[in-house]
């Protein structure tokens, strides 16, 4: 693994129900880098992320995330790998019966942190996402954008090296999308690598960053040429 890469896939092939989803994929994400992974629905973008947090394992090739050779580690090491990752989904995945504070605190409780530290850290990340004043509210009392900010706060609580976001703005209105994108950029500016899956062209265009497209089971880097994204030659 190169010194600055936090994610590296080498010749990764993955089949799902006899369909080839990833075909000899090579990909790197460097420390502190922001990248979009784009492509039409069903092309395998989410499967790509699943490989990184070890919900699936490749049929061949190697996947490395930070210091973890993801496809070689034991089941016992998987939780340690996931603590290095902040994961954000489109469907929030907040616990409906717990308030904002507890939803975030919970990610630190599972790692066995002390209550005093948990309290301080939760307030810190909630302040970072602008929701410390809403800490006692239940998820149902929050807007979609606010709920997604809570999810991001939870993902940040463990100070991960990488944030993986799967369509984080997919369910949000333009105002909330703007808030989330600005938050992700702020997080990235603090040095955390961000890999975001989206099929929202407007977002990719407005908040420009490295863009990788999935096509025919392979990844392809794109660059802006005027108003269009074109493959890197």
């Amino acid at each position, binding site marked *: 693994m190169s010194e600055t890469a936090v994610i590296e896939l080498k010749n990764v092939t993955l089949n799902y129900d006899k369909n080839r989803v990833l075909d000899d994929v090579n990909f790197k994400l460097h420390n502190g880098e922001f990248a979009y992974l784009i492509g039409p629905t069903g092309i395998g973008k*989410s499967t790509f*992320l*699943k490989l990184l*947090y070890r*919900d699936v394992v490749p049929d061949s090739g190697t996947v490395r995330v930070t210091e973890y050779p993801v496809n070689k580690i034991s*089941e*016992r090491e998987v*939780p*340690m*790998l*996931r*603590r290095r*990752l902040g*994961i954000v*989904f489109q469907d929030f*995945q*907040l*616990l*409906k*019966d717990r308030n904002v504070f507890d939803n975030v605190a*919970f*990610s630190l*409780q*599972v*790692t*066995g942190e002390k209550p005093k530290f948990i309290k301080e850290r939760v307030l810190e990340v909630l302040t970072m996402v602008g929701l410390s004043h809403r800490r006692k509210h239940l998820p149902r009392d929050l807007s979609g954008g606010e709920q997604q900010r809570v999810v991001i706060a*939870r993902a940040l*609580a*463990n100070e991960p090296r990488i944030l993986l976001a*799967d369509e984080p703005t997919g369910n949000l209105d333009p105002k909330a999308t703007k808030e989330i994108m600005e938050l992700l950029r702020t997080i990235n500016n603090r040095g955390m690598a961000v890999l975001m899956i989206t099929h929202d062209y407007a977002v990719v265009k407005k908040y420009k960053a490295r863009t990788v497209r999935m096509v025919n089971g392979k990844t392809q880097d794109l660059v802006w040429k005027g108003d269009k994204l074109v493959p890197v030659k």
Partner: protein
Amino acid sequence: MSIKYIVREGISGIKRTKLAATTSIFSLFVAVLLLGILTRIGFNVYSQAMSIKELVEVEVFLLDVDERTMDQIRQQIESEELVIDATYISKDSASAIMREEFGAGVEELAELNFLPASYRLSVNTDAGAESIETMVSRLQNIRGVDEVEYNAALLRVMESNLNTFSMVGGGIGILILLAALVLVYNTIRLTIYAKRDLIRAMKLVGATHKFIRSPFIVEGILQGLIAGSLAVLSIFFIFELAMPYYLPDLGLLEWPFGRWYFLAGAMLLLSMMMGWWGSRWAARRFIKETYISE
């Protein structure tokens, strides 16, 4: 791993999924109550049978022998493993016993000096009818022994009935236990299924399987404790209040081993162990099969 967190989560888990938890508690309660009733009735049947068996005595009737031979016979009798106690009944004592049993006028019917001297043996009836029969045939071969008598038929009937009862009772007990385990496993699985979002979220933030499982196990043990306590209370109610009132002829069925806390403790322990085992089994499988992205 924070014990406080796990215990708190385990307790609040019951509150969060009240319906599923109630179902688990109810199935555990029914199973433990049935086993408790079976144990209490079974124990009483067993002790009754044992006390009847204890009435079985072996009588060794002697020929007219001298004292030296009588001592030898006594030594041989006492060397038998199954013999707990041997009481010598002389000819005179035999006549006295006959008079006592049949009334003062018995002399008019028969001469009493025909009664032989004998040894009356208390034997360990746990050994079973077959061992006693073997011992009896050994005693019969002792020089100076005229005849050996005991109630073989009663012993055999008791033994056969007890064996049938043990097999049927044991079979029912095992069936109840198995049915309860499957029921408990499935209801706890439902409880865990109701919390799949929590499990997914825990996996997402890097919780170990052990950590995810622990609150479910605490919850299972708590459910067992609640179900066991209810079953113990029900046993008290059934055997100490309801049965003496509605079925006074049956009399008061004794607690196994004479103390209430043996059965109550065993029921509580069994219930908690079933809760522990059911939740552990269900949680293990469910956690393993749950993926973050579904």
